[in-house]
């Protein structure tokens, strides 16, 4: 099992009372509330946390990015990935991920990622996302072509990585007369691609068709099992049987040296007033054309205040009950995580450890206890349950590199 550490890297110094008063904390929530002095301190603190985490035995870092919002300071995950490529030695650098539709030049993105892969000596996992709804507006990208751009940018990045140049790309959304980047990945055929997601059935099916692991982002245990049903059925359709190496899970887990402190800090997960929880603005979070057409009725009603967010907005207690938030000492958390592993059987697991205004000292305690106690225990449980990661079973990077595809009835000749 591959276990990694994640934090949203919150801009915790922003005035959250003003955010509550304003009623939304993204896109149009003014950046006059961003304090670069505090920002500089926080960026450096978070960097030190990753270095510390590796020293404590953490074997992977999951990084992400968001725009125009205080809940995540990473405006470009490749920036932190580049630094970590140089200052850490062994941990996997897992980007979940670069929002492909936001890329106006996917070849440039392919170059950046290839550089990160080479500098890190092959430690890059290059996940890709569609980007949240408001990210499209924050970057001026057409939300109605989000999925088309996602798929085409993916194809172009993979081509830039794995096809010998020079070649030409004439697509619907991207046209490049010459593709011939002089930075190509160290890992062959190309770095592993994992696809995180929350809700969109289309993305689950797309990931399964590529044979890319799908990472369920903080979904409830029941919702996660439903995601695997869709993924696994698609896998069978395209000729392979999905296993733990195809299934990833991100959960909010805060570990501390006392139960009381753990609960107090776990409540900070609700601080994140971003687009997936809390103060999502219904119009910006779901621009027309961005969401699945099958959910159109739900989203239009939500957008005018007639219905709840189809993504839900559960309380702390509900999230604890649903298995979306865990907290405690290693002694109490490990048995809880064992049950999750037994029920959902992922081969990739991200512990979302710290959020909100958790203090530097408490964040380090959490990281230390994860690295020294929780993660080793999870890896042992993983071995016992046969929850192998893609690295452990040397899973094919993409469906087309599979050597075990079942003969499909319709695939005659």
């Amino acid at each position, binding site marked *: 099992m591959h276990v990694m550490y994640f934090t949203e890297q919150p801009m915790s110094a922003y005035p959250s009372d003003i955010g509550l008063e304003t009623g939304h904390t993204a*896109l149009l929530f003014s950046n006059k509330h961003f304090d670069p002095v505090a920002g500089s301190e926080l960026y450096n603190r978070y960097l030190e946390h990753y270095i510390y985490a590796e020293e404590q035995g953490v074997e992977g870092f999951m990084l992400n990015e968001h725009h125009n919002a205080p809940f995540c300071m990473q405006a470009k995950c490749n920036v932190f990935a580049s630094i970590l490529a140089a200052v850490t030695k062994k941990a996997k650098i897992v980007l979940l991920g670069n929002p492909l539709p936001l890329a106006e030049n996917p070849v440039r993105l392919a170059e950046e990622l290839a550089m990160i892969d080479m500098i890190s000596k092959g430690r890059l996992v290059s996940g890709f996302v569609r980007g949240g709804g408001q990210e499209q507006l924050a970057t*001026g990208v057409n*939300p109605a072509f989000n999925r088309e751009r996602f798929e085409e940018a993916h194809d172009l990045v993979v081509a830039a990585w794995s096809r010998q140049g020079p070649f030409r790309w004439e697509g619907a959304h991207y046209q490049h007369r010459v593709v011939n980047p002089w930075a190509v990945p160290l890992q062959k055929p190309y770095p592993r691609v994992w696809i995180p997601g929350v809700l969109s059935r289309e993305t689950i099916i797309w990931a399964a068709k590529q044979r890319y692991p799908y990472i369920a982002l903080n979904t409830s245990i029941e919702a996660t099992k439903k995601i695997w049903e869709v993924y696994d059925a698609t896998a069978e359709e395209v000729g392979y049987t999905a296993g733990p190496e195809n299934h990833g899970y991100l959960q909010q887990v805060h570990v501390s040296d006392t139960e009381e402190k753990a609960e107090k800090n776990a409540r900070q997960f609700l601080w994140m007033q971003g687009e997936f929880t809390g103060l999502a603005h219904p119009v910006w979070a779901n621009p*027309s054309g961005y969401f699945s057409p099958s959910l159109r009725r739900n989203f*239009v009603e939500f*957008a*005018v205040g007639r219905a709840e967010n189809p993504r839900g907005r559960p309380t702390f207690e509900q999230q604890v009950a649903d298995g979306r938030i865990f907290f405690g000492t290693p002694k109490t958390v490990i048995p809880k995580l064992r049950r999750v592993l037994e029920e959902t059987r992922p081969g990739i697991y991200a512990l979302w450890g710290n959020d909100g205004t958790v203090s530097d000292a408490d964040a380090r305690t959490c990281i230390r206890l994860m690295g020294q106690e929780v993660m080793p225990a999870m890896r042992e449980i993983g071995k016992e349950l046969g929850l192998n990661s893609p690295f452990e079973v040397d899973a094919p990077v993409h469906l087309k590199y599979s050597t075990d595809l079942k003969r499909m009835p319709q695939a005659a000749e």
Partner: protein
Amino acid sequence: MAGWSDHEVDLGGLKVRVGRGGAGRPVLVLHHDIGTLDKLPFYEALSARFDVIVPVHPGFGEKSERAQWLRHPRDIAALYQWLLADLGVERASLVGLGFGGWIAAEMAALAPRDFHRLVLVGAMGIKPPQGEIKDQAIVSYIDYAKAGFHDPAAFARNYGDVSTEQLVDWDLCREMSFRIAWKPYMYNLSLPHLLGGVKAPSLVVWGDDDQIVPKSAGEVYAKALPGARFETVAACGHCAEMEKPDELARLVTGFIDVN
């Protein structure tokens, strides 16, 4: 509406819904970016004198099929030339409302000799020298539609309690607007330079309280179109055909109904 009928017209496999009523000179009315209600008193008023043709833009609501390949309002302008050709309509007048005004202006620019009269009402399509075209991406469907009216009562008179079906329709319209006019948003930088050849006499009409398209864009239209007349409708927003239907119908009728 008496004598009003709905047809589905097939344009090379694309099915476009077309409402038609009345008799007389042909008048092609092009609706807003928020689609159109089926029956508007404005259409009825025009149909008392004219053969009124109201297509539903492809993909703008559930009635007209979406064309995945559409990328620019000019594509719709070309489709409507095709529609008029298939219907055997010659020397139509164009009445473009808001976003439909952009399509009408593109049609006139592409075929400067074809039309009897050109009427643009709060037309999009030109970058306003002062102010900006309102960005619907950051307001809710209802708030955007309401911003089209000077008097909230006029919005309520037209849309009543907004149904979920209407919201779905607005969402489809919005998605289509994004697909074809996202960047630059709701204007074409080359359009003002192409209007000088338009031979049809033009009337540019603006509500004096248009919160969607600044009046400065209308002034550019009036300057670019040879000999254009500019009229303002008092106490009126962007959707003049719904807020002041009688007044707009009188203006349009008087302008078109001459040789």
